[in-house]
């Protein structure tokens, strides 16, 4: 092998190594994205500027939009939350928890990182039977939008579940209180039944508000 030929081989091997390293890095990033479910694209400067201007208007709906830094952050919260009505251990990584306790209800709202979406757990008085609550009647009236099923749980037995394109809601009635677990803006197909069962098995009703 001549000196020139050996150099060509070395250059080729180097290029091949770089290609392999690049492919491995891209593959890792893709795996990481799937693992966290986060969209890794940052907003462009122009987008950020537009949104900042919109949010200065008090009536703008952009004020309701929540912004998040992609990927796991040091401030991300654990999985156990408490309200005056219930405690819950979530089998999800969450962020931006909001707890609201009133005289008659308790609300826990969190952002779920994987699969990305929002989860609102709401405890409120049940005025009549579960089947007659407006949340149930609405979903049953709109059969073209919602698919009804039941989720078997160890602690609470079968729980009513309604799914639509980007939302999944569970409804549980106990002692004249209605507990709803609503995932929204999410990919329902990625919500594992085992996680939902684990969530409800980690749900403990404490005191009425």
């Amino acid at each position, binding site marked *: 092998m001549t000196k020139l030929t050996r150099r060509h081989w070395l250059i080729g091997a180097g290029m091949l190594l770089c290609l392999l390293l690049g492919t491995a890095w891209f593959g890792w990033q893709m795996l990481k994205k799937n693992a966290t479910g986060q969209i890794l694209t940052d907003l462009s400067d122009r987008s950020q500027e537009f949104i900042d201007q919109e949010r200065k208007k008090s*009536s703008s709906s952009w004020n*309701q939009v929540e912004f998040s830094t992609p990927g796991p952050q040091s401030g991300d919260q654990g999985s156990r939350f408490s309200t005056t009505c219930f405690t819950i251990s979530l089998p999800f990584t969450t962020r931006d928890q909001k707890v609201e306790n009133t005289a008659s209800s308790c609300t826990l*709202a969190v952002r779920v990182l994987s699969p990305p979406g929002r989860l609102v*757990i709401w405890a409120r008085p049940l*005025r009549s039977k579960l089947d007659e609550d*407006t*949340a149930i009647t609405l979903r049953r009236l709109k059969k073209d939008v919602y698919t009804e099923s039941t989720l078997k749980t160890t602690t609470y037995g079968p729980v009513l579940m309604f799914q639509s394109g980007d*939302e999944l*809601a569970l409804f549980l009635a106990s002692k004249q209180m209605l507990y709803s677990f609503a995932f*929204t803006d999410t990919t329902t197909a990625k919500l594992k039944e085992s996680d939902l069962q684990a969530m409800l098995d980690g749900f403990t009703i404490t005191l009425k508000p």
Partner: protein
Amino acid sequence: MNRTSARLLTIFFLFAMPASTAYEMRDFGFGAGGSSVSDSTTYSSVSIVGEQGGSDKNVGTTYNLGPGLIFTQQSNVPAAPTFTNPSSYYNKLKFVLDTGSNPTDTLFAIAISTDDFVTTNFIQADNTIGASPVYQTYSTWGGAGGANVIGLSVSTTYKIKVKAMQTKYTETEYSVAASATTSAPTLTYDIDVSPTDSDTGAPYTVAFGTLNVGSVTTAADKVWIDIDTNAESGAAVYVYDGAGGLVSSNAGATITSATADLSLVSTGYGLQIASVTQSAGGPLAKVSPYNGASENVGVITTESSQIFSTTSLPITAGRGSVYVKAKASSTTPAAGDYSDTITMIASGSF
């Protein structure tokens, strides 16, 4: 017998009139019609000489003929009264007496029965039914406008007949009877949901579509009610809901209902009556706070509130419609499942 003999005979009978220490017939007739009323502190008697007593009469299919003075001095037998159920009454019936061309001071008693007078009762002065006859003048019984006999049983046929009396010894036999039937108590109620006045079936859903921030949204469909009742004191329609507002499980939020001018508040939800009509009775009336105009709405709570009234009177073909209005603010969490269950019930006062 010549004329002188006849005069002597007349004088003889005139001075040979019956008398006793207790009673005295002060006047009596002879021949074709002499009669007298005799009074003392204890008794009175009517006497007639030379005529038959008049207890029997000739009865025909159309007319009866009572012979003698007794029938002659009796009041006229009234014709059958008018006895009707003009407005599906379930506990009363209307009667109008016939005077029989008797004088205005003639008194009438009205017998009433549900078994063709096997058992007879009488209409009392307060228009209820009692065991003893009550005599009142034509005008006291309501005159030409008549009156209602009250306290009757539902779905029952009653017969009434009338007798007249002006003074003593003048009471007539009963008139021909008239009959009428009370109705069953009824309340018919229906709900429809439609932009215009038309009948629709369940399920009754009113859709808002998208609630725009800061502006009032009125659902295209209105809630319509039909109400028809013969309830003595009318009927009312009440409204309540499941949670006092539009509830979203997805957002964990409620657009709370309130009595307000939605154009002046940042958020709210409520009902406003759009129209009220009826073909008879009532009228159907809007009840505050649902009787506002423009964007003024009345609150819906979990406790029932009266929204329509028939003004405490029976009503025929009452029809009302209701707008459903809502407004979201910039802080109202967006969600696709805001909903409420509104219940409207009708109640009659029988």
